[in-house]
């Protein structure tokens, strides 16, 4: 059965399942948006999707290419200004979960979307923080989804754009009014959660057909595995159908507009 779906699909479906019905979710563009909308179209019809462009409780029929596509506003309950979005809805504590992607992540779930190399003379300049720094600290918890590779899973991020648990795993300790931080990381290979004590990422579930060696090979540090290592449930036929329909609709829509 493992060749009936791609590893990308496995990742998206698993990420989608992390969202529970009724949660309010602040959605990052790209993989998180795909997963969050899949959740809404499958097991979590009342998940509340919020994009930083100001669209509250939006139900796009196709995936947005940008964080502020017209589709998001047209299908939203209402659209507020961007200052209001960040002040009242995010900082105001109305968001259960922030759903983020990233360019780099380290063992303490710190995220780098700023640059590769040195800040003053970057090798690669990335887009920057966007909404992530405060999503990661103001939302109740954070889910992260990205493809697994040594390029993305690094021992130390080049720059902490967005806090996981800091360089030592303790950066949230004793900080007032801060969310729980990352509670799970979903990749195309596995699911990881921070150790409750040390906050170091631990693989808790391997996707069907994936080995521990494959995960280690794609990770830039010696990654820990849970004693009780689960196998991630496979996508259902319905989940795959809905996801493929969504992506096909999206493809047609974005190609067709001129």
């Amino acid at each position, binding site marked *: 059965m493992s060749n009936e779906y791609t590893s990308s699909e496995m990742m998206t479906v698993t990420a989608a399942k992390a969202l529970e019905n009724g949660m309010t979710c602040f959605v990052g563009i790209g993989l998180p948006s795909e997963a969050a909308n899949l959740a809404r179209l499958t097991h979590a019809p009342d998940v509340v999707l919020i994009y930083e462009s100001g669209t509250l409780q939006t139900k796009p029929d196709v995936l947005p290419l940008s964080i502020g596509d017209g589709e998001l506003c047209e299908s939203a309950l209402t659209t507020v200004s961007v200052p209001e979005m960040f002040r009242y809805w995010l900082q105001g504590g109305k968001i259960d979960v922030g759903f983020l992607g990233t360019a780099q992540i380290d063992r303490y779930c710190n995220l780098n979307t700023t640059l590769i190399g040195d800040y003053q003379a*970057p090798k690669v300049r990335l887009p920057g*923080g966007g909404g992530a720094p405060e999503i990661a600290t103001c939302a109740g918890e954070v889910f992260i989804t990205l493809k697994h590779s040594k390029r993305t899973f690094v021992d130390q991020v080049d720059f902490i754009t967005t806090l996981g648990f800091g360089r030592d795993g303790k950066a949230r300790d004793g900080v007032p*009014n801060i969310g729980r931080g990352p509670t799970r990381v979903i990749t195309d290979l596995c699911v990881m959660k921070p150790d409750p004590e040390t906050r170091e990422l631990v693989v808790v579930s391997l996707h069907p057909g994936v080995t521990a060696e494959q995960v280690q090979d794609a990770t830039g540090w010696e990654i820990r595995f849970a004693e009780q290592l689960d196998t991630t449930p496979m996508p259902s036929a319905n989940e795959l159908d809905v996801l493929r329909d969504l992506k096909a609709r999206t493809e047609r829509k*974005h190609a067709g507009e001129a």
Partner: protein
Amino acid sequence: MAEFLSLHDAVARYVEDGATVAMEGFTHLIPFAAGHEVIRQRKHDLTLIRMTPDLVYDQLIGAGCAKKLIFSWGGNPGVGSLHRLRDAVEKGWPHKVEIFEHSHAAMACAFEAGAAGLPLAVLRGYVGSELPSVNDQIKYIECPFTGERLAAVPSVRPDVSLVHAQKADRKGNVLVEGIIGVQKEAILAAGKSIVTVEEIVDDLEAGPNACVIPGWAIDAIAVAEKGAYPSYAHGYYPRDNRFYKEWDTIARDRDTFQAWLDENIYNAGGQAQ
């Protein structure tokens, strides 16, 4: 009081070399026509402020208009990099651009504070982020009631702001509808403001709490049909996602970009004087 001007005249009058300029529109109503006019008039040494630089700032930076950039997310949304921005930051082409980098939350609060006439914005932000170590415009205050340490950033108060909106009435009152971003804040925070609109109408037909900016709070209004293209104007035309994807190829190479600039900006549009 808003004056109806051509876009050429509005930019010529209000955008000075060396000015601090905000062109806003959060992924919607991005003022491309206005940005192109700034390029066409070869304005330079600008400090450019924008939460999401997007293609319009890639074009301005590639054309050499920018000295500094204050921003919070500089990518081609859903596509990838802004290659002209990267080329300027990584290789200094066409010249080095100094960057002041924030988070969206801080920039949004800084626009809000600018509109509110305050010198600073206060937010619960940047906790654990290394951005404060590379941006000395991020400081802290202590709450006198709780002792909590909160981030502070200078408010955004541009010399001039340029935004695009759906329509203005004949008194210069402007309706912004849909994803309203920080457009109102950009106008209210600025010393001078230029609003381009799709059309002038007799009646805005706005609801009682619509985002309407009074004409007396605006300096110049210029009609620019499809002025937000290739971004979109809610109720008028959709985003040209295809162009956003094509931009990746155009902007990746300096010569291709230069040819695009010549063809689409310098030798096209605008108004002979």
